[in-house]
């Protein structure tokens, strides 16, 4: 395993426009992602980032570490807390060997206050 054991942080700040575009491209019309009044009526602080968008950031961290998106074999995550548009999300993690030619990456996505939004893992091929 020649790549560093600690993953370089991957960051993204999805704004409301990004949520609109992400929702449009995935054909996701759920109002909690774009309707602030509706989201608040559901007990949320406002519109929330899509679960799959969080997954994309975890995927990006794994792919960047592996050097090729095609080397990501599996990915999983659990949602811990919602995040809203305008909040910077940071994925960190560390790598451990997971068998011949495979590495497991344990991943954590946090918000600006350091609170966890997602915990996850990826398995990547090393070559």
């Amino acid at each position, binding site marked *: 395993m020649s790549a560093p054991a600690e993953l370089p942080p991957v960051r993204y700040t999805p704004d409301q426009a990004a949520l609109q575009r992400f929702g449009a*491209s995935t054909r996701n019309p759920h*109002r909690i992602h774009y309707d602030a009044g509706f989201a608040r009526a559901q007990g949320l602080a406002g519109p929330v980032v899509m679960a799959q968008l969080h*997954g*994309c950031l975890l*995927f990006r961290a794994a792919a*960047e570490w592996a050097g*090729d*998106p095609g080397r990501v074999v599996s990915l*999983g995550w659990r949602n811990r807390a919602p995040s809203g548009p305008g909040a910077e999300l940071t994925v960190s993690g560390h790598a451990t060997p997971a068998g011949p030619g495979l590495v497991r990456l344990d991943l954590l996505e946090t918000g600006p206050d350091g609170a966890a939004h997602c915990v*996850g893992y990826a398995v990547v091929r090393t070559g």
Partner: protein
Amino acid sequence: MRPALWAVRTRALELLGRVEHRSLGPVRAAEARRFAEAAGETDPRLLDPARPDFQLHPMYLVSLLRGPGHPRPGELRPDGMYRDEVPGTDGLDVLLMAGGQDLTWHRPLRPDEYVEQTRELVSVRCKGRAPTQFLVLEVAKRWSTAGHGVVVEATETFLVR
């Protein structure tokens, strides 16, 4: 357990093991590029369809809720989500949350391949105690193409309160 939650549980148990099929249609490079941009992707191999090493973003397929076209009248709940997205919940006064996903890729998807999806509710669990009981529904999904088999498999978890 609240009556609405009990109704979800009853319906969901009846749906266990029933396999649904959906067509997502052909997956276009330009759509996957727009998806990658919205997701904050920076890898040019996922952003530039003109590159010889362009790849459809692997997360695009598993994030797509439907194929091309607008929702049909009556297809959406009042909250905007598709009525059948979370099994057993249509029309009931419950709150839905995405719990997480586990994905395994078997091969890359190529532009313009025609994708079919299967969905199957595989488990229904009650968690917590009244008055904070909730249900955990697990749905197994598989995306495949006619000529080249399975592309990716997933287990998605929904929390119903």
